[in-house]
């Protein structure tokens, strides 16, 4: 298919914690993870809370908590993503759509937040264009986050991530708490971005929307990547799925078999 935009190899993320007194212990967040996202592709990463999927996003963006240790290699468009390279690419070539609307600054009008990182000369124009694209009234630009609804704030978060130069978008749980129509809208926006050639890493625990929007679905559990399956295999009884854990996950859905699954994959 297309050229890889993001390549993650042998990624380990662990945390050093003070257990009692001065004794420390190490907690594993992610272990030995390999993943690749290609141009124009949506790769969904699914897994339960604590499976390490948000850590993956934070590791790529370099915003892990200070007590985190990261080893392994993250490459963006063929080159290692170092701190210096992050400074040049974050906000320009790599965009992040965070999970929660608390990621917006409560004391800054939303329009201004969308304009951060845009060329000051054209920022206002570009922001109006983005507001129009995401169905936000132009008057809303002057409002503060507390004056907008949750759904509108999601769209603002989308608007902050869309830049002409973007090659990779990392969307962390952009759908929870939204009603079905709004979820469909978010997914449509992601599809549009991918159609423009952007690589999209979609982190979610919503299997159904992941399957409906992505080409491939990566399944994580306990900090490890269990399997990467084609989205098309998540159908019927999931017989086309290669890994038993993916099958269990799919069959456990209420609309499928609602089965508790087996332990055959352990």
């Amino acid at each position: 298919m297309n050229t890889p935009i993001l390549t993650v190899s042998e990624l380990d993320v662990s945390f050093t914690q003070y257990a009692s007194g001065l004794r420390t212990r190490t907690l594993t967040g992610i272990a030995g993870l390999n993943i690749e996202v290609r141009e124009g592709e949506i790769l969904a990463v699914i897994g339960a809370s604590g499976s390490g999927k948000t850590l993956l996003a934070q590791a790529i963006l370099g915003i892990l908590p200070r007590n985190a240790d990261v080893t392994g290699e993250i490459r963006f468009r063929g080159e290692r993503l170092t701190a210096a390279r992050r400074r040049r690419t974050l906000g320009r070539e790599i965009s992040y759509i965070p999970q929660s609307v608390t990621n917006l600054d409560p004391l800054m009008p939303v329009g201004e937040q969308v304009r951060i990182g845009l060329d000051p000369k054209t920022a206002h124009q570009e922001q109006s264009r983005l507001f129009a694209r995401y169905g936000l009234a132009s008057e809303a630009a002057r409002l503060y986050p507390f004056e907008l609804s949750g759904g509108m704030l999601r769209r603002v978060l989308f608007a902050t991530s869309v830049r002409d130069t973007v090659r990779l978008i990392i969307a962390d749980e952009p759908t929870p708490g939204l009603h079905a129509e709004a979820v469909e809208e978010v997914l449509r926006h992601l599809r549009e971005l991918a159609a423009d050639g952007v690589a999209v890493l979609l982190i979610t625990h919503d299997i159904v929307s992941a399957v409906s929007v992505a080409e491939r679905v990566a399944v994580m559990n306990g900090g490890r990547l269990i399997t990467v399956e084609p989205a098309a295999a998540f159908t019927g009884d999931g017989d086309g799925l290669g890994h038993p854990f993916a099958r269990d996950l799919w069959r456990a859905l209420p609309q499928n078999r609602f089965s508790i699954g087996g332990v055959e994959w352990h």
Partner: protein
Amino acid sequence: MPRLLLLRVLRLATLLIGVSVLAFALVHNSPIDPIQAYIGANVDITDEQLARLREQWGLDRSPIEQYLAWAREMIQGNFGTSTLYEAPVIDVMGARFGASLALMGVAWTMSGVLGYLLGVTAATHRGRLADRLISWYSYTLSATPTFWLGIVFLVVFSVWLGWFPVGLAGPQGVPAEDVTFAQRLHHFVLPSITLSAVGVANIAMHTREKMTDVLNSDYVAFARARGESDWQIFRNHGFRNSVVPAVTLQFAYFAELFGGSVLAETVFSYPGLGSTLTEAALGGDVPLLLGIVLVSAVFVFTGNLIADVVNAAIDPRIRSRA
């Protein structure tokens, strides 16, 4: 808005009535006899003269009558006559207010700016040496009484090192109008540093906490993920979000500032409103004391009012609640 304004004015009026009644009751019940304080060691005064003086000052009437007489004058804008200075209270206060205002103004600005900067530095270096030094300084200073710090400064800088004069606003024996600006400044340094040093601690510690919260917030993490530099994060998000508690404290600090200036001025014999208040209390000068008390109440009230207005200007969520 007009209703809000009316409410504020009403609140100020009740505050002033309450404060003046309380202050009056306290002086009235204090063991200091104004007449005795006035005549001092002068033993040539006859009982007849004493009685006349008592009558002239209205001390022969009941306390309620005395208070009401004072209040009646007060409402007409007449602060009364100082018994100690034998001059209108308003003139006595006017001469001192400038000196105090300069002292408090400098201390206020220094403690605000320095406190905020130290707080931000501590938060951005949390757990490291700079943070530990600033925290140590702040905790020590907030546990230090102003007058004691003033005495320590006097001992170290005036007595041992001889860098600064021991007190007053100008050299002794020189008429006030002949004191040069440099001399004034020289006398001004220690009292103002004493007053600032204590104020820094509070602002620094509150700013440190707030700034730590801000730096750990989702929106700062998001700003990092968007490639904003440390300076951009501070300018775009850090400042506005962390300055609210500093501003609130800084204006609410008017009360402590005034209290601190009373102590600092007394220690340094600095002729400001604060040391005059001490004099008035010890000399049983009721009109002067009440005058200064009322002025300070208005001063503190204004500080809180400004804090509310500025907060609303910074944080739109407060504005919409009002």
